[in-house]
């Protein structure tokens, strides 16, 4: 925690889910203890690595980053909190998270000095309860060589056929590892993981 920052809610330390405090420039000035616990479990950056950096710099994808930056500016400009919900699933578990963006105010002036970002798990269930599995359309995805191509990053599978490549999320291929699935990488994940786009659509 940056000692010069005027507001850091002490109760954040008791929160079981990661929270961080941003200054008016969107830089992370502090994180709670849960941040490091979750980071270690998910190979994410520890608090000591992110404090002082721009929060949005840790969001992957230019469009998503711009969207979150707009949201952040809106919270700071209006001085009103916002929240959003999003899935963050594993092959086994459905997980619905809520992220809150709350302006932090200096007392007693009520001047906005930063934003609290708090992420909480609000619903969790076996993935099959939310996304019942069926039988995938094998002909749609099986290539001429007999294999199904799956992106090793996002786990979408490639529709068989000529370029441009079309990738679709098929829960059945995510849920069950199969020996006839060859793992590659889709255009989006290639950019996300390696910052490297193919010169032409494969």
């Amino acid at each position, binding site marked *: 925690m940056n000692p010069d920052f005027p507001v850091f809610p002490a109760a954040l330390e008791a929160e079981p889910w990661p929270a961080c405090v941003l200054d008016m420039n969107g830089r992370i000035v502090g994180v709670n203890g849960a941040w490091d616990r979750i980071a270690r479990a998910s190979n994410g950056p520890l608090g000591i690595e992110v404090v002082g950096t721009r929060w949005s710099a840790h969001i992957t994808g230019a469009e998503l980053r711009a969207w979150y930056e707009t949201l952040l500016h809106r919270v700071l400009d209006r001085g009103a909190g916002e929240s959003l919900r999003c899935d963050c699933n594993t092959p086994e578990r459905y997980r619905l998270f809520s992220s809150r963006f709350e302006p932090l105010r200096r007392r007693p002036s009520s001047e906005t000095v930063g934003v609290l970002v708090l992420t909480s798990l609000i619903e969790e269930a076996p993935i099959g309860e939310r996304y019942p599995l069926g039988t995938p359309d094998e002909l749609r995805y099986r290539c001429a*060589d*007999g*294999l199904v*191509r*799956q992106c*090793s*990053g996002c786990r979408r599978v490639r529709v068989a056929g000529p370029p441009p490549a079309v990738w679709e999320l098929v829960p059945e291929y995510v849920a069950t*590892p199969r*020996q*006839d*699935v*060859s*793992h*590659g*990488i*889709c*255009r989006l*994940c*290639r950019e996300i*993981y*390696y910052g*490297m786009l*193919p*010169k*032409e659509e*494969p």
Partner: protein
Amino acid sequence: MIPDEPRSPHPGSPSNSDGPVSSDYDVLVVEDDQDCREVLCSLLSLEGYRVQGAASGAEALDVLAKMDEPPRLVFLDLVMPGMSGFDFLSEMRRDPTLTEIPVVMHSGMSEQPYFGTRPGVAHWLQKPARLDDLLAITRQLTP
């Protein structure tokens, strides 16, 4: 696409498995997915390794047969059409000059729990590999 454009191999550049085979490559990448192969070849080439790609086990054996000196390291996909990664590994190890080459299995699933430790596999690397892990393993196995 870098590995599949005809070109003359030169140090620091990804190589084409269809092109002429140099006698002194550091790393052989056996990977049927063109994008994965291209990424691996490019990343390792940027680090200064001389890299040769092969799109199948059969092609990789052909590449090895044409090399004067064996590569120092092989990155090997597991699931490929025709010859699997394990099939290729068995074939490669039959050549007494290739038995000591460290092999990194590069696979989309964490197969290690499924298959256990395989003789001749120096390391398992799950796709998509983190760049740091990829380079650390390469440095470790090509001293």
